[in-house]
């Protein structure tokens, strides 16, 4: 591991940006590593913070101004990042590395329960299911079966309240964004683009391929917590009966 594999710095007087750069890491490894760092920070240092924004390659930490110790906190977070990054950068073998990573104080994400989300797959050709299947050289049914077998992990909520980005889409299901974005993506749309799967919490414009629509409520300000799926949670999709 070198210092160029990560960076921890104050970007403004109350916010710290903690980046995992490590170009030797795969996208999946980077997400896994960031999830562990995110969880470790929430477990041990939540009292220092007032907000946290998880990202694809970084975590933004909003400190309580009255608790900041500039030099000490950079060291503290750097040490934490190093600990979680070490196993990945020492061994080229992902699985071997992940196995070694789990020492006593680390978080094992694979044991978390899976939330099942029911989807009305687009079997009537209203959206993009057929298009995706054709593009990937699959039948519609094969695509649905394959999609429902994936164990997705929530990377973050972003773009709008409750819009989840899920990682876990295998390379064989990657598809570029729509050339022309839709003006109206329906509420609850389950869509894929490039390496990610996302769920639209409300109607909005969007450029992802819609595979189906769910009635699962992604964001409700009256609930605690307001978003039904947060960073680190696992999700599996299931076809509703009429699909």
């Amino acid at each position, binding site marked *: 591991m070198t210092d160029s594999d990560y960076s921890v*710095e104050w970007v*403004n007087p109350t916010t710290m*940006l903690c980046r995992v750069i490590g170009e030797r890491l795969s996208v999946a490894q980077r997400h896994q590593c960031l999830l562990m760092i995110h969880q470790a920070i929430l477990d041990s240092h939540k009292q220092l913070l007032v907000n946290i924004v*998880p990202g694809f390659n970084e975590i*933004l930490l909003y400190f309580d101004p009255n608790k900041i110790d500039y030099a000490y906190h950079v060291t503290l977070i750097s040490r934490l990042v190093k600990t979680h990054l070490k196993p990945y950068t020492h061994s080229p073998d992902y699985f071997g590395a992940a196995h070694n990573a789990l020492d006593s104080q680390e978080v094992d994400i694979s044991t978390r329960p899976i939330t099942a989300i029911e989807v009305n797959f687009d079997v009537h050709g209203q959206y993009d299911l057929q298009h995706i299947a054709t593009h990937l050289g699959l039948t519609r049914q094969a695509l649905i079966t394959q999609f429902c077998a994936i164990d997705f992990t929530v990377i973050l909520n*972003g*773009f*709008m*309240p409750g819009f989840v980005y899920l990682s876990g889409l295998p390379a064989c299901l990657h598809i570029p964004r729509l050339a022309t974005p839709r003006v109206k993506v329906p509420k609850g749309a389950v869509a894929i683009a490039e390496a990610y799967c996302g769920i639209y919490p409300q109607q909005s414009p969007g450029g992802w391929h819609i595979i189906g629509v769910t009635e699962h409520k992604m964001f409700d300000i009256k609930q605690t917590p307001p978003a039904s799926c947060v960073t680190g949670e696992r999700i599996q999709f299931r076809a509703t009966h009429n699909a």
Partner: protein
Amino acid sequence: MLECVRTELPIFIVDTGRQWSGLYGVSESGAMDMGALERANHILQQSPNTAALEILGSASFVTHISMWVCFTGSAAEINIAGQGRLLNQAIWVNAHQTIVVERAKQGMRVILGVYGGIDVPQYFSSSCGIVREGFGAFGDGKPMVSGTVASINTNTSTNTNTNTNTNTNTIANTSTAHLHHNTEHVPKNDKAKAHRSVSCVSETAAWIDFVPNYQYAKFSVTSRYRFVEQAMQVTAQSDRMGLRLACTQPISAPKLTSSQALALGVIQIPPDGQPIVMGRDRQTHGGYPVIGTVPEYGVDQLAQINVGQAFYFRVVTIEQAIATYWLKKRLRV
């Protein structure tokens, strides 16, 4: 209660912003000129997080009950019951009096602080609301417009209220408001503070500090040079989400492969090369490359720069930014 009789532009409820909202993709929000909000609440001797109003254009209000108010921010002309009043002072306003705020010639945003605070339901420990998010402020994220009646929190013994009702003040609790809002809670006008006016950049120097970070190292030398050597202007397309700037020579930016988490004040460079400084209502993530970050105190200054007025960006180290941040915070209170 405080009724908005007429307002040129929507008026926002502001406080120090939301906490623990980032996990859910919810914006931070808060006062664009945080220094002005903190000063108003400091003068009114209450928690910095007490909800106040952020006024952009001209507006007029009528009080339904008597209350302490304090104006900070831009150098707006304030008239209460026909009498001109100063900024940065605690002012006692009787019931049924008219408050008129004229659009400021210098500065963009006036904070109208009220003793007790504007009383609306809180989400993520904040009274702020954003229309596109659909919750908070005066219901569904809506700002104050002509005709909106705001409740004032009369239970001033605690500043961490979690009230759930808006606009439901009855005559009964309006009368108790009088008891709580007695004149002893608030100090006599502080003459020294009354002079310390607008935090607007033009009064000191036309420089806005920024700390090079995020993708700064990936910008070409030409882009970095162009960013600091030419005059920038705030455009009329600016809002609480982002202050959109204009410059003659567009800044070209490196390619960015994925979206990133956006801190307050990050300077995004979109394909047209005109910088956007992300404000309090910014979305949690953004896809444009970032050349650096304007520290909080710089965002306060930018929020008060008049549309069309020129300024320059100045590189500072994070250490300098931290020192200035704390110095300004200490001077404020």
